[in-house]
Each structure stands twice: as C-alpha cells, then as structure tokens.
C-alpha cells in the first residue's frame, strides 16, 4: 500500500525532498547486510510505498508539492530531477506568486479555500496512481504561514475527501529563539486545528535536531540542509519497510494503519515523538560498532528521561516502582522527571535483529494503566540495514515527550495574546479573538490530559 506525501510551504518542501532522497539512497544501498531475496523484497515494498513507476524507469515520488511562492518548489523539482535516481512528477505541484507572509490566517482562510479545488485535484490524481492507498503524510512547519495555515486547511480537506484513509502530520517545531516572531501564534493555531483532522502528529524540533548535528554529527557550520537530512534519516528509519508482526513473512502493507493502531488508542492523545539511535557522521560510522543491548538500553533511557539524543541522557531518572502508590498528578509547570507513555513502537533494522531483547520496554511501570503492556508496546523489524547503519533502532512514542514543549509554546503565545500584539494581522484575514481563545482552550485541554497520565 502506498503513502502519498503532501509537502507544504518552504520547510515542507525542503524536508520532503530530503526524505525522498534518503529513502532512494537507502533503496540503492549496497550495505543491506541481508540476503539478495530479502533485499529485493525490501526494495519492492519501498518502491510501492513511496514511488510510482514511470516509462523512463526513473521512479517518481508519490508527492504533491504546495507552496504560495514559486522559488522553493522550483528548486526542489530541479534538484530532484538532477539526481538521476528519482524525481517528482512535474505536474504534481501547485504554487502561487506571493507567499502567505507568515500569516496563519492568510494561509488558512484565504489561500486554503481559494485553491482548495486545484490542490485536492492534484492529491486525487496521486491517490489514483496508487493500487491501494495507505494514507497521507503531510510535511509542514508550524512557524510560517503556508505550511502551518494552509497545511491545517489542506489536512481538513484530506480528512473530508478521504474519510477512511490515515493522515499523519509531520510537524516541525521551530527554534525556540525565533525564526518567525509570530511563530507561537501560528503554532497554537496549527496544533489545535490539526488535532481535529489528523490521526496523529509526529513532531520534530529544530532545536533538538540542531544539537544532534552539533554534538553527534560534528557539523561545524550547520545549515538547514543538515538539519533536514537528519530529520529525513529519522523518518526513513521508521517508514522504510518492516515486518510489523512476529512471524510475518511479508513486509507490512499498511505502515500508517499499523502505526495508528499501535500508538493512538484514544483521539485525545495524538502527539508522537521520534528518537533514533545511533546517529553520527558518516566518517565516524566506519569506525564504530554497536551492540544491541547497548543501543536498546540507551533508547529506553531516552524514553524514560525524555532525552532528545543519546548523549547527555539523565540516567538518574527511573520509572516509579511497582506496588508504590501512583504519584500525584503533576502540573504542567513542574519539571517532569519521568516520562509516562501511553504506547511505544520500536523499529529495529540490520544485523541480528532476531536476537534483540526488548524486555525493558515491556515493563508495565513505563506505561499508563489503560492498555495492558502487550498492547502498549509494538516492535517492527527487518534484517535489512538502513542507510549504512549496521544496526539502527528508532522509537516512536506516544508519551509525555512533548508536554513541556507544548506548554512552553502555549505559554508564550498566551503571553503575547494578553497584550493583543499582532492580533490585528490575523483579524485582517478573518481569524478573530474568539478563534484564538478556542485554540488555546483546545490545547490547554490536551496539555491537561497529557499531564495527568
């Protein structure tokens, strides 16, 4: 089954390109470390999932590119075509002349409705190219105007037009210290709206990825390209083909469905975080070896202590001991030490995946009590190594990972809203103060729910 990707705005298009590129590179990788048959299976599944066949033999990404100004899409289309290994369908894009001006209201209330039909037509065409549609993957930032505002609108349209398909929003959290001054408003508006239409939101934070680039990848002068490549690697490590159940003989046909089923048992809880281990520069990779126990131990502690990467993990944090009374409800303002999960998914790729012991992740102490631990924890795996990493493990978690982050953004946005700064820019396009209040209310609700886990 196939996934159609909708790339929205500058960020969405830049990252979308890196994702397809990473997937394609992995597809061609000669370091699969598995049998030829296995590799062929993998490639076939990957292709079906992300690319459609073309007469020329060059795979065409299953994607729709949307932006309100032309420069980024123009660049994206041409860089992809130049690679020779894959390309976009050059008909499958939509752009206008003038951007959204970082104005969520402009993206949502003006551009969205105005161009809805054209864009949904393009999506429909891509969907029809798929033998079977697994669902949609949208890529967008929260800080700007098009990805965020128009992205929210498009997500709604997807939901309306494809009520039975899965929708996963890949959302980029902006740097804490501004890229855009009104980013907190745009983020609050985006999150609250996506919550209504998407099945889940998978979040990447620029700050966290930036640190990974600096400390793990050892990049001196970090560019957005570097950041985007790390994100692409992390996404690829989850969404490349895997066997999603024990004893499965075929690569999973429905990755999005599996993901939602495992991780989103309740519509109030849709925020997913992603961690990947190990991460390092290509140079270091050739000299490093890893053991599964080491990787799993680190990954588990990253979950428990809410660490963003494998360095600087706080090993003091422990899950509450069984038999002891449940700790009192933590308010969102108190620094949470232990990260409670609703559900987790670990993806393993590479050498000796069969032998990996994941008992540590089945510990009931990690989870809330709603699901029994067997249901709360799922494993996907494949012996086929990913992107030159002999062994790699990823964690997708529905937990309190994003609680503090969200709380921060809502706090800052509220603080600004109290002074009414910039609100006139939004009311100009039809987003009124009441709309803001509704969004704040929605998010406070979500925060409250996650805090009380």
């Amino acid at each position, binding site marked *: 089954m196939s996934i159609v990707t909708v790339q929205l705005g500058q960020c969405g298009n830049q990252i979308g390109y890196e994702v397809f590129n990473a997937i394609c590179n992995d597809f061609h990788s000669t370091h699969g470390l598995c049998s030829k048959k296995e590799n062929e299976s993998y490639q076939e599944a990957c292709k079906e999932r992300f690319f459609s066949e073309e007469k020329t033999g060059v795979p065409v990404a299953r994607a729709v590119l949307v932006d309100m100004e032309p420069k980024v899409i123009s660049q994206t289309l041409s860089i992809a075509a130049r690679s020779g290994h894959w390309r976009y369908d050059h008909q499958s894009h939509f752009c206008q*002349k003038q951007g959204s*001006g970082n104005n969520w209201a402009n993206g949502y209330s003006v551009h969205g409705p105005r161009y809805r039909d054209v864009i949904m037509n393009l999506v429909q065409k891509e969907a029809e190219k798929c033998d079977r549609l697994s669902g949609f993957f949208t890529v967008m930032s929260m800080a700007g105007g098009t990805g965020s505002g128009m992205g929210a609108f498009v997500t709604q349209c997807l939901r309306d037009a494809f009520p039975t398909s899965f929708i996963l929003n890949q959302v980029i959290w902006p740097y*804490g210290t*501004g890229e*855009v001054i009104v980013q907190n408003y745009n983020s609050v508006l985006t999150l609250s709206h996506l919550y209504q239409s998407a099945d889940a939101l998978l979040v990447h934070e620029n700050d966290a990825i930036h640190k990974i680039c600096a400390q793990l990848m050892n990049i001196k002068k970090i560019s957005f390209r570097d950041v985007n490549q790390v994100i692409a690697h992390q996404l690829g490590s989850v969404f490349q083909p895997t066997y999603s159940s024990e004893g499965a003989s075929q690569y999973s046909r429905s990755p999005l469905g599996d993901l939602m089923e495992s991780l989103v048992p309740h519509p109030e809880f849709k925020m997913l975080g992603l961690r990947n281990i190990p991460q390092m520069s290509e140079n270091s990779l050739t000299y490093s070896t890893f053991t599964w126990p080491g990787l799993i131990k680190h990954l588990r502690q990253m979950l428990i202590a809410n660490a963003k990467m494998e360095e600087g993990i706080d090993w003091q944090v422990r899950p509450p001991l069984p038999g002891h009374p449940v700790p009192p409800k933590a308010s969102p303002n108190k620094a949470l030490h232990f990260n409670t999960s609703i559900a987790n998914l670990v993806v393993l790729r590479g050498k000796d995946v069969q032998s990996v012991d994941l008992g540590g992740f089945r510990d009931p102490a990690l989870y809330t009590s709603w699901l029994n631990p067997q249901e709360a924890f799922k494993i996907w795996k494949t012996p086929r190594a990913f992107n030159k990493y002999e062994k790699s493990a990823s964690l997708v978690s529905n937990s309190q990972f994003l609680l503090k982050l969200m709380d921060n953004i809502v706090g800052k946005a509220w603080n600004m809203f109290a*002074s009414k*700064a910039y609100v006139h820019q939004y009311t100009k396009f039809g987003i009124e103060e009441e709309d803001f209040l509704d969004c704040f209310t929605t998010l*406070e609700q979500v925060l409250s729910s996650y805090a009380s886990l």
Partner: protein
Amino acid sequence: MVPSTPSLAVGRACVSLTRTAPGTRGAGLSEAWFGVGGASPSPVGGGGAAAGARAPLLTAPGAATMTQSVVVQVGQCGNQIGCRFWDLALREHAAVNKKGIYDEALSSFFRNVDTRNGGGDADIHKGKIFSLKARALLIDMEEGVVNEILQGPLRDVFDSKQLITDVSGSGNNWAVGHKLYGYQYREHIVEKLRRTAEHCDCLQCFFVIHSMGGGTGSGLGTFVLNVLEDEFPEVYRFVTSVYPSGEDDVITSPYNSVLAMKELNEHADCVLPIENESLFSIVSKIHQMTSSGKLGSTVKQNSLLTSSAGSIKTEQEKPFDAMNNIVANLLLNLTSSARFEGSLNMDLNEISMNLVPFPRLHYLVSSLTPLYTLADVNVPSRRLDQMFSDAFSKDHQLIQADPKHSLYLACALLVRGNVQVSDLRRNIERLKPSLHFVSWNQEGWKTGLCSVPPVGHSHSLLALANNTCVKPTFTELKDRFMKLYKKKAHLHHYLRVDGMEQSCFSEAISSLSDLIEEYNQLDATKSAPGTYPSRLKIAM
C-alpha cells in the same frame, strides 16, 4: 486551474564571487547586457555544478513568476536616492546574471522591452534581455533632478511615460505639494500608476522614497501614499523617509515633516526613517578607514556601502551619492530574499507581518553591515560575528538612535551570502542578553537567509528594529514644530493654500503626540518586571 505554460528554461548563471577587474566599471555592465549580441541563451543542462557555484535554476512548467515591486520616487531627494537605487540594482543583477537572460529576479524590479521596432511596448517575459525598464514612477515639481537623470547614463532605464514633472517646485511647502499639486495631478498619478501596475503580473509592494522636510517629497509624496491606499489597497506600502536634521536650512521643515508624519501614521504599512547625519557619519567612517592607509589597498572598492563602483555611472560622484548609495543598498537588501533564493526566505509581506505588532507602530530602524569588505576572501567566523555585533551598534543605524539602550518590540535579521543557520543562532544567543525586548515578545526575532550576497561581499546583514529608540527623532521633531507653531511663524504660507486649514496642523501634531505616547507607554514597561498573565484553567 494550474496554468500550463510551456516549460521555461530560464537559466540563472552561477554566482561567482570573483570580482570583475577594475576598469570594467560601467563599461563592463553595458557589455554584459546592453551589448549582448544574437547569441541565444543555451538551455540550462544538468550535470555537476562547479564547487562553490550555484547551480542554474530550472523553472518548472506551469510555475508562477515571482512578485513585482514598483518604486515611486518623489521630490529632489527621493529621485536622487531612487537614481542610485536603480543603478545599484542593475549592478547587482548583472553580477548574478552573467548570461543576460531576463529572469524572475530581474522581473521584480524591471520590465524587459524590445525597443528595436519602435512603438512596441510589450513586455518580453523570457529569454534574452533587450532593454530593461525600471518599474518606477518619477515625480518632481521641479525639472532639474529628473532631467539630469534622463540625460544621464540611466536614461534608457526610464521612459517618458513614467514621469510627472512640473516647473516651479513646491517652495518647501507641504501644503503646496499635497493640496495644490496633489489635486492638480491626481488623475495623472492614478493613470500612470495603473499603467505601471498593469505591467506587473503580481504586484506586491510600492516603495515610496521621499524626504520629509521639503515640499514635494513631503507633501506630494504623502499625497501619493494616500492614492496608493485608495487605488491599490491590497498592495503593501513601504516608505523610505529622509527626516530633516536639527540644523536643516529649510526653516519650515518641522511643519512639513509633522504634516507628513500624520500621513505616514495612517497610510503606510512600514516606514524606514533615515537621517542625513547618520548617513554622513557612515560615509565619513568609511572614508577614514579606507584612506587611512591601514586598510586602503586591500579594501574592495565596489564593496563599500557607499560606492557606485561597477555601476553605470562613470562621471564624478556627487557629494550626496555616497550617502544615497547607502539607502539604495538598504532597499536592495530588504528585497533580496524576495528576489533570490535561500534556505529561509523572508518576503516583504513577512516583514510587515512580523515587525508591526500594532498598526501604528510601524517605524523600523535599519542598519547595514559590513560597511566594506577586505579583499581577503577567507573570512574567519570572528569577522562574521563582528558583522552581527556591528548591526546593533548605534554607529551603524541609519537614524540617530541607540537600539541597545531602548526597548525592542521586534527585530528582523536578513542575512545574505554564505551564512548558515548555526551562525545566525550563535549570534542571536550571544547578543540577546545585552538587548531589551518587550515582555510579550522576549524572543521577538524574525530571520531570513538569502544565498546571494551583495556585490563585493561574501556576506552581509540587514537589521530592522521596531524599537522605542525611534522616539527621540519624533520628540525632537515635535519640539521644533512647536517652537514655530507657537509663534505662528510662516503659517500663512500654508493656510493660504486651498484646502489647508488650521485643523490640519492641530490634527497632525495630535497624531504625532499620540504616537510618541504609545512609545512612552512601552518604554514604561521596560523597567517594570514582566507579570505573566495566568493561563486558562480547564475543568477536568
């Protein structure tokens, strides 16, 4: 419907950081474009791009073009600055566009017209550059400056249909400019604006350039601003205003400025105030540095913020040219991210969105760094960081102001050239502690990264600050106004103009006072500790 135009192979030449040899000043530019012969543009192919060079930009089929901007230059000062702007704009594009292809970046400010067959005024949207015409309107009630432009080396860039001139000038009288000439020329102005707008596929912004202290720029300039709002309400209005100094030799400049301020308050989206004293200091500073012998020979001449080197202008530089070049560079940098690609684009509508938290507080203090580049291309990051520091020093601001000691409402940094997000972040973190931001916008930074540097530089920075440091400019203006107004000095010159009444004055000063008061209130919050409003409580 997605437009289905045939595939445009609009090639964009590689950005080369090597400079054209000295001696090709002016002539080089002409040859590069105006002398391009029959060679047809070769289709842009793929293949490996040379290291460091930027690969050509293919325009995808059906892709939309970018937006356009129109410059409206009014009065003597406005036209002199405007003239420098067009000259440097051509220089900038020539440096990037080696093949002489009319590309989208050029189209933001220039039309491409085939003048060979005479009479044909149709725009040519792609292919070779024939004759570039500025998207501009030149307005002056005296003929001197505009005539000079039309006889000078830039004459081909403008056509007579873009001009509105008169003979007698406005006598340094805002009322004459605004009420008399405004009324007289309104239709003319509207008609020419319409025509200019029609040549634009997607008009995004009007840039008005004028001075505040005189009669035409100040009076007629603000009249045009009103017209722009009435006729083109959707198009942004960015105004570059040169404010008079205390020692201005035009006695009535305070009147003219305050009367103009009311218009700016009400009808501009963003105002970039400029003070001649600041421009003069910067010019002196550059002059000192480059002729002191210490750096002299190693400075790249065309990198000077004040330089006309490499542009068409070959004759003796006029005394104001250096100062006006600074303002021209301001406008080029402001629009760079809209014209050229980058990893984090910053369009003009984003500037307005992020820097104007309340409608009337739209005055942006600007600074440009570096002032010059040394020939040494290997720039250690220390020098890069110095560029960021300088942007916040009071010596680099284009008005007499010290943003560091006042309160920031918002700040934008537009970086050009070989600078990455980590450089940007490092410097913001470094400088943040020494700056005061208003409590509700503690992280009030808007950033942009444009890949194409200005001519002669490997990187540059434009900082735009919405900062209360602009207040002294206004309070001094108010004081000078009151000094005259109390004595009713020269008032009769204004009141005898048809349509002008005493209430115009009282409303204007009231508008200015209100604005000052808004800044006062914000300043008051600076010392008070920020009290954070309590969050919404959710019933569980």
